[in-house]
Structures are given as C-alpha cells and as structure tokens.
C-alpha cells in the first residue's frame, strides 16, 4: 500500500534578524534557490532537488526562531480528515487562506502542546525549476554551496512531550523510530510519517516553541565534508561536526545561520518502516546517541535554541 495521509515536511517559516544576510546564507552557502520576495517582505526559497515552489520561508523579525512547520498531505480530502480528527481530539484549528503564500493552497493550522504551530496543506504549485522528469539529468544547473537537496526535518524544543507524542501518533499517524527515556521521563522522541528515520523530533524543554535546528539533506558523507569546507571558507559559526548521530545514524554538521538559528546538513540515516520496533536509549548512553564519535553531548546541545 502506498503512503496515505501526510506525506512529508513541506514548509518551514523561520524568523531572521537581517534579511540580506539570511538570503546570502540560505542561497549562496546552503545552496537553496531564491524563488521570490513578496510585498510583505517574506522570502521564499527551495532546494534544487525539490519539485514544489518553495520549502523555506524567511520572515524578518526582531527575534530568531521558528514561526511554523508544515506537512504536505496527499490531497484535500486527507486535510479535511485531519481537521476533523484534530478538532475531535479537542485542539482548535485555524484556517489559512489559499494564496497567503504564493502558489500555495489553503492550509489548516494548530498549536501543539510543546507550544509550536503546525500547518497541514495539500496543494502547492510545481516549481518552474523543478527537477526534470523526462530523461532527467541528476541536476539541470550545478548545485551551489553546500548543495542541499531538500528540506529534511526539524528538531523542536518545548514542554509536554508525552502529550506531543500522543497527538502525533494518535491523530497525525506518525510512528516513532527512536527515543530517549530517562528515569524521570522522556527526554526526546524522533518521529516520522514516512520511512525517513525522522521527519520531526522533539526534546523536552521548559520553554515552549523553541527551535533547535532545521536540517537540509545532502547526498553523502563527501558532501558533508564539502559543506564543512564551505563553513570554514565563509567563517560560518559551527556548533559540532562533521560527525555522526547514533540516533538515526545520520551523518551531520550543526552550524548557525546569521541570526543564530541552528542549521544541520544531514545525510544517510536508516530507513524506518512502520512495523519496525522503536530503538530506545537510556541516560547512560545518550551521549553516543546524539554524537556517535564524541560519545558525549556538547554543552550547546541541551541549552542553545532560538
């Protein structure tokens, strides 16, 4: 049976302190394509290997962080179905009109118990620069910068993890490939609605609505090395890596955009099917889970968020 309901992460809207610096970072360093800037100032970008109009939206503001993360559904019927289930679960749903973002259909929007806003939508125009589909080349124009292929996932920090887990698994049909359980409760969950190792992850944190990182997918470990070369050449603030996560097994670098939002370039990661058991980490081994080679968390992992 093919995948139904929610398909994948589709859009992230980020707050940036300075739009010009942000455009240079996301376009020239990470390598996203600039799609448009609209009258309200928001800037739309996409990765070269994505089919739809945009995936990353930047909004200039006086604080950094995330406005919302949106998942694409496989049709309006599915969106309507989720709306019903979310409302029956007791969560208020707000409508976002078609055209609030260019080329994008109507969305539903709601707050989750960690204090983050999640949107769901079915329709977005295909990009004029979408990958070829007829006798395709692997790319039409040579990828720039870190050669990001797609928006991959995000890690969010906030309270009420058990409620977040219940909502995502019972109402949105996610499954949980991996988790960290401490004696006093769950520290973190990695969740997917596809068979990527994660589409979204959460870490328990007292302050709601925080962004730990947004991740972009690269082709392989050699492109991770190339991304590290780009970071040194342009003096990009690096957090940790190149290294590997024990959790998801992805290979990674954490670094920061010019507003202090953490970014990740990520490749690899196992395939997570819904019938696979959850991998569980405990407090004595979680360091190796987060950073497999260092075998310990760095000071910034649990505390530095926007």
């Amino acid at each position, binding site marked *: 049976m093919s995948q139904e309901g929610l398909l994948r992460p589709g859009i992230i809207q980020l707050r940036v*302190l*300075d739009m010009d610096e942000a455009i240079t970072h996301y376009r020239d360093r990470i390598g996203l394509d600039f799609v448009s800037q609209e009258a309200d100032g928001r800037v739309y970008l996409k990765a070269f290997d994505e089919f739809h109009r945009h995936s990353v939206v930047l909004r200039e503001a*006086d*604080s*950094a*962080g995330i406005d919302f993360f949106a998942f694409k559904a496989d049709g309006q019927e599915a969106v309507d179905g989720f709306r019903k289930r979310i409302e029956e679960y007791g969560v*208020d749903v707000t409508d976002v009109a078609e055209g609030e973002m260019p080329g994008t259909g109507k969305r539903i929007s709601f*707050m989750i*118990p960690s*204090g983050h806003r999640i949107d769901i939508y079915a329709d977005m125009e295909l990009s004029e620069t979408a990958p070829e589909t007829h006798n395709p080349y692997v790319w039409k124009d040579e990828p720039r910068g870190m050669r990001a292929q797609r928006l991959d996932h995000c890690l969010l920090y906030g*309270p*009420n993890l058990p409620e977040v887990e219940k909502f995502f698994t019972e109402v949105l049909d996610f499954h949980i490939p991996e988790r960290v359980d401490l004696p006093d409760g769950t520290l973190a969950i990695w969740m997917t609605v596809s068979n990527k190792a994660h589409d979204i992850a959460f870490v328990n*944190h*007292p*302050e*709601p609505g*925080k962004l730990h990182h947004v991740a972009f997918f690269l082709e392989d470990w050699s492109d991770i090395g190339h991304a590290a070369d780009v970071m*040194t050449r342009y*003096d990009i*603030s690096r*957090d940790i890596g190149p290294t590997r996560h024990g959790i998801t097994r992805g290979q990674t670098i954490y670094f*920061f*955009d*010019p*507003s*202090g*939002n*953490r970014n990740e370039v990520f490749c690899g990661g196992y395939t997570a099917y819904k019938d696979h058991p959850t991998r569980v980490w405990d407090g004595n081994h979680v360091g190796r889970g987060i950073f497999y080679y260092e075998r310990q968390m760095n*000071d*910034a992992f649990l*505390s*530095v*968020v*926007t």
Partner: protein
Amino acid sequence: MPDGSPLSALHSIRFKGCETDILCAEDQKVLMAMEQKIHFPNPRPVRVGCRKGGCGACRVKVTKGSYTAEKSSRTHVTEEEAAEGYALACRISPRSDLELEPAFLGPRRPVENGD
C-alpha cells in the same frame, strides 16, 4: 573573523569572577576574543552558543566601558535592558576597556499554549 584580522585598537576586557583579563580588538566581538583566548582547561566566564545574537547563551551585563552593539534578538535583550547595559557578548565590540558580568537567563518560564 577568520585567522589574524587586521589590527585595530585593543581594549582590555574583564569578566567578573574570572582571573584573566583578555584583549579584544575594536573590530572583533567580545565573545570571539574570549573563545580564542580562554579555553580548556580554564572555564569560560561566558557561555558560547550560536555566536550570532539569536540564542542568548552569551548574555552579559556591561558594568563599565563603552561598546558598539550589532542587531540581536529582542527575546534575550529588550530595548530597556539594552539601555541598562545588558547585551549579547557575540554582538558587541569594545570602544574602551570593558567590565562585564555573565547574565545568562536559562530557559524562560513556560507560558500557556497558544498564547
């Protein structure tokens, strides 16, 4: 800034509770000077986070001296706080010798969902 930056006027930075004063150039950020000059096994007086004015890890209060500040997140330093000398060390450059104390706030209080 990468490698050796062009020399500009140097000022001395004193962190409350830290034995060693450091030198910071006018075209350098205080946090980056601290990162270069104070490292393991010496504890750093100010936390290092994003280095870009977004996360608040390097929040300090400047108790003496003058400095220039680049744009940073209002979540961590409001306009009123900035007027009182609060700043993010990764966004300020000295214009005189400085004295500062760490003022990291940790996570802000939980608020009602959706508000």
